[in-house]
């Protein structure tokens, strides 16, 4: 330590600062490592029950579950469902006329909407390419209220034997609701064809927007601004549990009050309720209890990070309509719940939503749920990401200090002339080339699928996916070729400047992503922050190249696919996993063009070029 009476002389200051610089450089790596593990530990600790809060109803107008449910006709709903199934089989698609007639018989104002869409390439999961369909919806007008607000109950018309009971229950509820006089909002009963595509067409028609280039006929009847929506998926006559799905497009979640409402009614009526298909356990202090909570939370994180809507409700969220999907699950349990009880639960939920005076806004919009009765809000989970982002900032600080430090003197006291500031070109070139590669990754797969199909014996979907992977891998060869373009060699300062720019760019990118979709930002941070931290041209090339490829976005996706299957207790072999991975990539590209999902453009245009910058730095000469 300096003696005190040296005062504030200049040399003393300089020496102090030098010591500080040394401190920063020396401790940088350990602090980064500590921060990384702290971030991961914080994230894992989020599922630990004492660190979470119990869910509670925040909206005063909805209050408690104090309502009398009297829905009587579950059996009649099932009969209607069977009739629907028969007509569906006869027509070979959506039985539009029968639905219109049935809804009109129940006293609703019925309208239809037809839509058509040609997908950019065939969807192999759902086996469709040129999609044409009709949506049918009936509006129950509120007996005494003006037509300013509406609620939506929807059931998808799925091919085969799926969701017949859902449509039957929807029609049964429509009949029961029509006889009540206490509705203050219009209720719209919607049966949509081709699940998400039909729902997108209906929503675009309802809100007079056209963001995805779909062709649809305008809606003849409308009901006011939609306050909340529920989508029903029920494929069996009796169920053992009800599952709620919250994740929507781009990782958007509905207001937590909707999940709270569902949970409150499940408890009141006595139906078993799950989230992510997992039951919650009360033994949080045991290892298996904690691991159940962690698995539920990780499933939610992975689903949110994928950015695709996991139910028909996912598309409502973009229009600021709180929506959730309720799925009926029939597994091997002793206690079965019949359709009347499900109808009562829905009736109770709709009566409470009827009491709303404004849109749901009192509770959280950003949260994670390790179980249905506990949640973690954004204030608690953001520090986990913050700790990872701090690593990037520390690295940037370190680089800045290194760049502004006086150049080291050589033995004969002559300053190395070559340590002058690097040319702008040597930094800008990798940036531009990486982003051009990213743009190629974004545009080439769809544009050149025809050419690929001509030359190779693959289907269109495979062509698209394989082109994407090819472009991705081609980007790995870039650094060796970039330097052929540049004359001369890169400098020590050069890679430092490039790394500073890359690290700051990554920090901004991940920060913005985490704000909108925390899960995506966190998962990308988990893999990309170590890359950003340790990569320099001086680390052993082969090993770090291997590590860099393992931590690249594509491999992160591959591991996530395997992990996701493990969490859902349906582990796959490597073969099936690889095919699943290819289908995930194709679904991501399709989601982007059909519904406007932003994950694929984000990764192709921004994350991948950023990773390429680090790859460039590794091979810097």
């Amino acid at each position, binding site marked *: 330590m300096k003696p*005190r009476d040296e005062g504030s002389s200049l040399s003393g200051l300089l020496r102090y600062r030098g010591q500080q610089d040394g401190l920063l450089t020396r401790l940088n790596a350990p602090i980064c490592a500590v921060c990384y593990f702290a971030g991961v530990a914080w994230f894992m600790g989020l599922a630990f029950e004492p660190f979470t809060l119990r869910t509670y109803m925040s909206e*005063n*107008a909805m*209050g408690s579950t*104090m*309502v*009398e449910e009297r829905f009587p006709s579950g059996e009649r709903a099932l009969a209607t469902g069977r009739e629907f199934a028969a007509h569906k089989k006869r027509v070979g698609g959506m039985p539009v006329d029968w639905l219109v007639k049935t809804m009109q018989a129940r006293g609703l104002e019925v309208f239809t909407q037809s839509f058509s869409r040609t997908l950019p390439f065939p969807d192999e999961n759902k086996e469709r390419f040129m999609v044409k369909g009709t949506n049918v919806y009936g509006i129950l007008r*509120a*007996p*005494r*209220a003006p037509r300013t607000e509406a609620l939506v109950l929807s059931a998808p018309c799925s091919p085969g034997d799926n969701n017949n009971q859902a449509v039957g229950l929807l029609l049964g509820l429509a009949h029961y609701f029509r006889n*009540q*006089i*206490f*509705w*203050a909002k219009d209720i719209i009963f919607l049966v949509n064809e081709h699940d998400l595509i039909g729902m997108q067409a209906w929503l675009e028609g309802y809100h007079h927007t056209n963001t995805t280039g779909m062709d649809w006929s305008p809606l003849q009847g409308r009901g006011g601004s939609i306050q909340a929506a529920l989508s029903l998926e029920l494929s069996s006559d009796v169920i053992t549990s009800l599952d709620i799905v919250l994740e929507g497009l781009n990782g958007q979640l509905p207001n937590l009050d909707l999940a709270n409402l569902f949970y409150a009614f499940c408890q009141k009526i006595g139906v078993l309720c799950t989230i992510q298909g997992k039951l919650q356990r009360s033994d949080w202090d045991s290892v298996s209890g904690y691991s159940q909570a962690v698995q539920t939370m990780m499933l939610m994180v992975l689903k949110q990070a994928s950015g695709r809507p996991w139910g028909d409700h996912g598309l409502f969220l973009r229009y600021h309509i709180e929506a959730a999907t309720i799925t009926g699950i029939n597994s091997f349990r002793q206690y079965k719940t019949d359709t009347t009880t499900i109808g009562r639960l829905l009736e109770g939920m709709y*009566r409470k939503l*009827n*009491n709303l*005076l404004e849109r749901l806004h009192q509770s959280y919009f950003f949260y994670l749920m390790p179980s249905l009765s506990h949640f973690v809000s954004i204030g608690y989970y953001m520090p986990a990401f913050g700790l990872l982002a701090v690593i990037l900032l520390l690295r940037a600080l370190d680089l800045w200090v290194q760049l502004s430090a006086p150049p080291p003197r050589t033995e004969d006291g002559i300053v190395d002339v070559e340590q002058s500031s690097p040319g702008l070109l040597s930094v800008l070139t990798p940036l531009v080339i990486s982003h051009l590669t990213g743009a190629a990754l974004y545009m080439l797969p769809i544009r050149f699928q025809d050419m690929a199909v001509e030359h190779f014996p693959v289907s269109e979907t495979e062509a698209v996916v394989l082109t994407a992977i090819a472009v991705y891998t081609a980007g790995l060869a870039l650094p060796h070729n970039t330097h052929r373009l540049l004359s001369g060699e890169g400098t020590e300062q050069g890679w430092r400047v490039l790394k500073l720019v890359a690290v700051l760019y990554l920090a901004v990118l991940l920060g913005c992503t985490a704000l909108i979709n925390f899960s995506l930002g966190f998962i990308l941070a988990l893999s990309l922050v170590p890359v950003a931290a340790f990569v320099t041209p001086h680390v052993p090339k082969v090993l770090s190249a291997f590590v860099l490829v393992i931590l690249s976005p594509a491999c992160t996706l591959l591991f996530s696919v395997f992990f996701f299957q493990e969490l859902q207790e349906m582990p796959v072999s490597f073969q099936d996993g690889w095919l699943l991975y290819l289908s995930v990539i194709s679904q991501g590209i399709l989601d982007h063009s059909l519904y406007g999902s932003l994950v694929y453009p984000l990764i192709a245009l921004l994350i991948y070029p950023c990773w390429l910058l680090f790859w460039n730095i590794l091979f810097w000469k």
Partner: protein
Amino acid sequence: MKLLPLLVLFTTLLKTHCVNIEENAGQFFSSGHTNNWAVLVCTSRFWFNYRHVANTLSVYRSVKRLGIPDSHIVLMLADDMACNHRNPKPATVFSHKNMELNVYGDDVEVDYRGYEVTVENFLRVLTGRLPPSTPRSKRLLSDDRSNILIYLTGHGGNGFLKFQDSEEISNVELADAFEQMWQKRRYNELLFIIDTCQGASMYERFYSPNLMALASSQVGEDSLSHQPDLAIGVHLMDRYTFYLLEFLEDIHPASKTNMNDLFKVCPKSQCVSTPGHRTDLFLRDPASVLITDFFGSVRKVEITREAVNLSDPIEQEQESPMNDDEHGKVFSYADQLPVSEIIHQKPKQKDWHPPDGFILGLWTLILLVFFRTYGVKHLKHIF
């Protein structure tokens, strides 16, 4: 022979009867009021505040049943529950679950409805400062011999009552309004009942004479709701007013129940909150105040033995010549009721607050700057 004792008995009976008449007559005069008014206010809107409207309507019903006519009742309801779209039984407002008692009835006269229920309108009604175009049904036309019942219900806090989710009335404003009423001789005696959370804070600041106040809960306590009804889907009443209504159902125009019984309504075991009351500003003993003095409209009869001579014409008064020394005389109102002499109020102790955070921060900043400029070594001179 037997006639004499009978005659003596008869005269004694007559005398005692006369004395009884005197006593009854004396009792008639004990309150000193000649007419009754009621101002009943419900300050909250929205469907989930159904119970506040039901509270007010049940007090309205009792007050009307005991004799106060609609022309003497100012009823202010901030929202219309009977015709709300969510009401499964339109045109009714129930106060007992299982729909036993419909307090809306078919002869309810609401004077201020919906958005007309504001703090400004409420204070104008109390003080009488209404524009000339206001109809009589919206005015409180009380005089100095009126007993007024004021009932407020809604959402409140420590020292304020919320009107319509957008404004508040504070206890200081209310006390000042009552003082204005006293100075303008707009009431003889006033009973103030409030059923909100922390209701006792609203009557803490009263300082005008002849005010008696009742509240459903003390400062720091919440008034709780009662009567959850599943068919309608809301709570129908608040606890305090529910038991108040039960108590008032037993009162009829001739009952002699007094205020001490009213203070006992809804003890903590039933109400969960502790009801409070304030009588130190009231001149009469609460035990001698009848419930019907405020809740009912009992006609008083004044017995006089003097004859009024109406035979002489009324003479005009002669104007006396103005004196010069009377010009500069300054007139002032005599203090008709020296309040400060009657009511001995303890001066309110101001709580000591630690110095403001801003001042602390400012001084810390000054100290830091001082020590930064002159070096830390000076610190050892201080400590």
